[in-house]
C-alpha cells in the first residue's frame, strides 16, 4: 500500500479551504445585479386561499415584483414530481397530487409557499412580504398518519381518497400466516419511528440567473445531484431544455438526503430571474428550513415475529403506515417500500416475510429520504423484534442472533434482495470482544451500587447500498437509471482531472477518488484533481446518496482508468518502438517486457498530445476516456453495534457510556474517512433515539421549529466511539467496496433502545427516549424508585 493509495488514511485534500474559511458555498456566491427572494408562507396547515393582495407590497421600497401561483400557472411552469411509481396491491398507480412551486388556491402545510417577493435587498424583501395580504379560509388539518386514513379525516387532495397514496405489499401473506400457525412463540410490537428534521448545518440556497441573450439559465444550488435537478427542472417543470439549463452545486454543507430533492424554491429562483431580468438569490433561514426541507422517517408500525421451539425465526409480518406529508417529494414513494420492506430479512435466515405499507398524505412538511432512508426503519423493526423475542423466551440476545444468522452466500431473501457476501458471526464476535460483553454483568452490579440502571443493546443491521442496478430499479418503478459516469482527462504534463457524476458534501471525494487514481497510475495524489457538481463540466451523473459514490462512482472511474491505460500503452508502444502486447505498466512506468527499455508516465502522456511518434490515422492523439458503470447488484454492508447505557433512576436521564461498532464495508479506500462517516451516522441515530423528534400540534403547527425546540445532538450527548471493521469483499464491483455512509444511522436507534429497555426492564418506550419518556416508562412499569 502506498502512502496515498487505496487503504491509506490520507489527510483530506479539500480541508485547507474549509479550515481557512475559503470554501465556496452557495450563499458565498453573489451575481452582479442580483436581487433577493423572500417567500410568503402559509401560517395554516390546511387552508383555501381566497385571495392574495400584493398591491401594497409591490409599492414598498426596492421591490421589483411580487409573484404568486397565478403567474406561475400563466407562465406554464410545471409541477414538481415524484419520480418513483409505486402500485398498490390492487394494481392501481399511486395517487400523486399536483405540487405547484407556489400554492395554487390551497395551502397544505404550514410553510407551503404562497407568494414570493423580489427586492433589491433581503431586508426590503422581508419588509414587503409582511405587506402581502393573503385571505385564507382555514380548514381542519390532520398530521398523524394513522388518523389521516380514518373516516371523517380532513381530505387534503381530491385524487387521494382517505388521504391514501398507495396500499402496497411485499411477500407471501398466506405462507407467513402458515409459518405463524406453527410457531412456538410470537413476539408482537407496536413501533413509532419518529419524524426527524435532517438539519444539514448549511441551510438550502439557490441563485437563479437567466441570460436573455442566449436564452440559458444557470442555477447555483445546494444539491446532492445537480444532473438530476437539471433533468427534473427541464423535463418535468419545463423551465428550459436541458441544454439551456446549467446546474452548479458548489461546496455543499451536508445533505443527509435532504438535498437530493427538487424543491419549489430553486424552481422559483430560476423562473423569477427571467421574470425580473436579474439574478435571484434565496437562502433559507433555519426556521424556514424546518418548514420547507423534506423531513425523514415518520412510520407507525405493528410487527410480529414467529419463532420455533429452538428460537429459529419462522416468519415476520409488519403493517406500516408511512406519513409522506402534504405532497409527494422527489423519491418519497420508494423510501417506505423498496428501501424498507426489502431489508426486513436483516442478517437472518427468515423463511417467510410479509410487509404491508400504506402511504398517506397529512398536513405536514413532505417526507422523503433521510440518512438511511427506509433501512433505519426496517432495522429498527427487525432488531427490536429479535431483542424482545430473546428476552421473552429467556435467551441471550447475541446467541439468538447467531443461531439465526445467514451463513451461506449468495442468499436469496423472501423480499427481493440477494445478499452476495458477508460474515455476520465475525462482526458480532469482534464487537462482543471489544465491548467486553463478558464483563457486562459486573459493570451492571457496579452501576446498581451507584443508583444507576445499566443496560446493553445490540443492533446487527444490514443495508442495501451501491444504489443501484438500473434494470432492477426500473422494474420496481424508478423513473431513472442509477448507473454512474466518470471521465479521466490526462494532461500533456501527466497531471489528471477526474470528472465524476457523484457529488461530495462532506464525504471527501476529492481525496478518495484521487487515492484511487494515484494508486492505479502511480502518480502523486497532488497531481490529481476531482471535478464534480457542474452540469457544464461533467456530462451526466446521478449524484451522491445511498453510499453509491464508492461502489458505483469509483467503479465507473476504474472502467475509465482501464481505457486510459489501454490507450497509454498504445502510445508507449510507439514511443518505445515495441509491440503493444509487450508493454507493461506498473508504478507509473511503462516498460517493454524482457528489456530494460522504459518510459515514465509523463513521457507517455506528453507524447499522446504532441503526436510526433505516431500517425493520426493509426492512433488518435490525446488521452481522455470516459465510462458509464451500471452495477449488477446492490451492495450489502452489515455489522454489529453495541450500545451500553446508564439510566439515572431519579431523573430518567440516559447516558451512553460505551459504543462499539464493527462494520463490514468491504474494501476501504480511506479508513480515516470511513470512521468519520460511522461516527456521524451513529450521532444521527443516537439523536433519533434519544432527543430528536418533530412534533406537530393538532392544528398542524410545528412545535419543534428551531434549534431552541428541536433537540439536535450536541457534543455532550455523545460518547467517544470504538469503531472497527471486518472485511468481506463485495464480489459485484471491481474494487470490492460496499459503502459506509448510512451504517451508523441505521444501526444506532435499535442499539440505543435495546440498551435502555434492557436497563429499565420494560419494552414500553417510544423514541425519542428523552429523560421524561424514560422516567414515565419507569413509573408505568412500577420500577420507581426503589424497586430497582
Amino acid at each position: 500500500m502506498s502512502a496515498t493509495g487505496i487503504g491509506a488514511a490520507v489527510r483530506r485534500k479539500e480541508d485547507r479551504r474549509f479550515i481557512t474559511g475559503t470554501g465556496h458555498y452557495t450563499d458565498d456566491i453573489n451575481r452582479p445585479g442580483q436581487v433577493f427572494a423572500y417567500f410568503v408562507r402559509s401560517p395554516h396547515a390546511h387552508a383555501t386561499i381566497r385571495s392574495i393582495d400584493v398591491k401594497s407590497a409591490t409599492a414598498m421600497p426596492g421591490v421589483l415584483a411580487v409573484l404568486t401561483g397565478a403567474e406561475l400557472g400563466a407562465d406554464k411552469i410545471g409541477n414538481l414530481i415524484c419520480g418513483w411509481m409505486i402500485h398498490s396491491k390492487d394494481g392501481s398507480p399511486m395517487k400523486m397530487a399536483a405540487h405547484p412551486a407556489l400554492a395554487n388556491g390551497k395551502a397544505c402545510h404550514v410553510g407551503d409557499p404562497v407568494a414570493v417577493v423580489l427586492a433589491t435587498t433581503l431586508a426590503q424583501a422581508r419588509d414587503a412580504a409582511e405587506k402581502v395580504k393573503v385571505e385564507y379560509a382555514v380548514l381542519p388539518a390532520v398530521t398523524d398518519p394513522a388518523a389521516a386514513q380514518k373516516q371523517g379525516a380532513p381530505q387534503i387532495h381530491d385524487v387521494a381518497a382517505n388521504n391514501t397514496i398507495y396500499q402496497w405489499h411485499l411477500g407471501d401473506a398466506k405462507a407467513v400466516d402458515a409459518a405463524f400457525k406453527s410457531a412456538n412463540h410470537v413476539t408482537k410490537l407496536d413501533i413509532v419511528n419518529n419524524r426527524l428534521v435532517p438539519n444539514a448545518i448549511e441551510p438550502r440556497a439557490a441563485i437563479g440567473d437567466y441570460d436573455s441573450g442566449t436564452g440559458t439559465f444557470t442555477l447555483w444550488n445546494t444539491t446532492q445531484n445537480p444532473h438530476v435537478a437539471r433533468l427534473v427542472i427541464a423535463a418535468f417543470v419545463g423551465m428550459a431544455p436541458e441544454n439551456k439549463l446549467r446546474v452548479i452545486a458548489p461546496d455543499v454543507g451536508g445533505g443527509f438526503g435532504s438535498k437530493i430533492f427538487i424543491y419549489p424554491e430553486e424552481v422559483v429562483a430560476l423562473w423569477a430571474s427571467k421574470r425580473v431580468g436579474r439574478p435571484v438569490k434565496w437562502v433559507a433561514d433555519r426556521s424556514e428550513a424546518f418548514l420547507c426541507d423534506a423531513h425523514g422517517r415518520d412510520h407507525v408500525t405493528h410487527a410480529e415475529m414467529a419463532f420455533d421451539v429452538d428460537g429459529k425465526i419462522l416468519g415476520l409480518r409488519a403493517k406500516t403506515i408511512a406519513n409522506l406529508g402534504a405532497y409527494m417529494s422527489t423519491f418519497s414513494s420508494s423510501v417506505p417500500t423498496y428501501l424498507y420492506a426489502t431489508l426486513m430479512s436483516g442478517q437472518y435466515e427468515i423463511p417467510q416475510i410479509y410487509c404491508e405499507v400504506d402511504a398517506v398524505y397529512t398536513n405536514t412538511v413532505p417526507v422523503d429520504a433521510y440518512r438511511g432512508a427506509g433501512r433505519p426503519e426496517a432495522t429498527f423493526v427487525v432488531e427490536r423484534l429479535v431483542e424482545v423475542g430473546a428476552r421473552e423466551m429467556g435467551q441471550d440476545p447475541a446467541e439468538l442472533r447467531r443461531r439465526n444468522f445467514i451463513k451461506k452466500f449468495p442468499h436469496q431473501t423472501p423480499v427481493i434482495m440477494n445478499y452476495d457476501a458477508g460474515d455476520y458471526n465475525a462482526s458480532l464476535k469482534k464487537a462482543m470482544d471489544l465491548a467486553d460483553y463478558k464483563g457486562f454483568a459486573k459493570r451492571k452490579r457496579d452501576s446498581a451500587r451507584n443508583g444507576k440502571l445499566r443496560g446493553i443493546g445490540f443492533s446487527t443491521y444490514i443495508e442495501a447500498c451501491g444504489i443501484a442496478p438500473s434494470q432492477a430499479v426500473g422494474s420496481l418503478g424508478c423513473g431513472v437509471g442509477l448507473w454512474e459516469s466518470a471521465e479521466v482527462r490526462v494532461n500533456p504534463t501527466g497531471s489528471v482531472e477526474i470528472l465524476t457524476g457523484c457529488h461530495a458534501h462532506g464525504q471527501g471525494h476529492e481525496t478518495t477518488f484521487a487515492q484511487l487514481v494515484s494508486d492505479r497510475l502511480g502518480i502523486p495524489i497532488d497531481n490529481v484533481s476531482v471535478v464534480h457538481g457542474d452540469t457544464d463540466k461533467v456530462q451526466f451523473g446521478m449524484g451522491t446518496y445511498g453510499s453509491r459514490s464508492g461502489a458505483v462512482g469509483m467503479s465507473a472511474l476504474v472502467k475509465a482508468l482501464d481505457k486510459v491505460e489501454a490507450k497509454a500503452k498504445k502510445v508507449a508502444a510507439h514511443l518505445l518502438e515495441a509491440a503493444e502486447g509487450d508493454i507493461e505498466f506498473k508504478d507509473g512506468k511503462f516498460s517493454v517486457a524482457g528489456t530494460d527499455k522504459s518510459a515514465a508516465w509523463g513521457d507517455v502522456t506528453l507524447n499522446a498530445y504532441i503526436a510526433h511518434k505516431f500517425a493520426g490515422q493509426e492512433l488518435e492523439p490525446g488521452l481522455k476516456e470516459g465510462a458509464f458503470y451500471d452495477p449488477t447488484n446492490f451492495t450489502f454492508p452489515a455489522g454489529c453495534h453495541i450500545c451500553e447505557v446508564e439510566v439515572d433512576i431519579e431523573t430518567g436521564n440516559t447516558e451512553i457510556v460505551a459504543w462499539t461498532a464493527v462494520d463490514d464495508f468491504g474494501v476501504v479506500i480511506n479508513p480515516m474517512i470511513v470512521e468519520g462517516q460511522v461516527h456521524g451516522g451513529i450521532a444521527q441515530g443516537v439523536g433519533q433515539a434519544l432527543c430528536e423528534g418533530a412534533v406537530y400540534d393538532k392544528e398542524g403547527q410545528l412545535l419543534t421549529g428551531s434549534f431552541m425546540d428541536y433537540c439536535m445532538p450536541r457534543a455532550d450527548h455523545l460518547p467517544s466511539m470504538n469503531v472497527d471493521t471486518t472485511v468481506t469483499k463485495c464480489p459485484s464491483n471491481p474494487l470490492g467496496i460496499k459503502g459506509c455512509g448510512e451504517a451508523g444511522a441505521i444501526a444506532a436507534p435499535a442499539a440505543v433502545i435495546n440498551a435502555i429497555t434492557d436497563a429499565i426492564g420494560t419494552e414500553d418506550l417510544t423514541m425519542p427516549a428523552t429523560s421524561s419518556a424514560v422516567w414515565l416508562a419507569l413509573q408505568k412499569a412500577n420500577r420507581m424508585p426503589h424497586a430497582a
Partner: protein
Amino acid sequence: MAANTAAVSLTVNGKPVTAEVDPRTLLVQLLREHLRLTGTHVGCDTSQCGACVVHVNGKATKSCTVLALQLGGANVLTIEGLAAPDGPLHPMQEAFRENHGLQCGYCTPGMIMTAVDMVRRKGNDLDEHTIREELEGNICRCTGYHNIVKAIAAGARAMRGTSAAKAAE
C-alpha cells in the same frame, strides 16, 4: 441601500475598516456582505449552532447576535485572520485537518474559533469532558463530534508555547 444608514469603524483581522450600514445589520452580515469575508457562516437564526463564531476583542462571540453598530472601535478576528493566506496554518486549524475534525466544513470555522477561545480560557490540557461541555454552543451534523473533540485536545496541546494563542487575542 436604504436611506437610513450609519457608519461604523472597527478593526477586522488587523485591518481598519469603515462601513456604512443599515442599523439592523448584524456583525455576520457586515463580515459576509460588506467585507466579503464569507468564511463566517450562518447556520441558524436562534444563536444556537455556532457556525458564526468570531472573536470580538479576543472573546468568542456569535456574530449573528451582535449588531455591527455596537462594535465601533472593536477588534474582530475571523477564521480568515487566523493564519496568513498561503502561510502556515494555526495549530488549531492544523489539528482539525490532521484529526479529520471536519466533513462538510460548514460548522468548521465556528468550531475552530470556539476551540481557540476554549484554550485561552481553559488552558492547553483539555480533557474530553471539558471539551464536550464547552462545545454546547456549536452544532455539527456530520462528525458526531468524536474527531472534533480529538482535534481540539490536540490543537490545544500544539498551541502550548506558541504565539498562536496570543495572536488570537
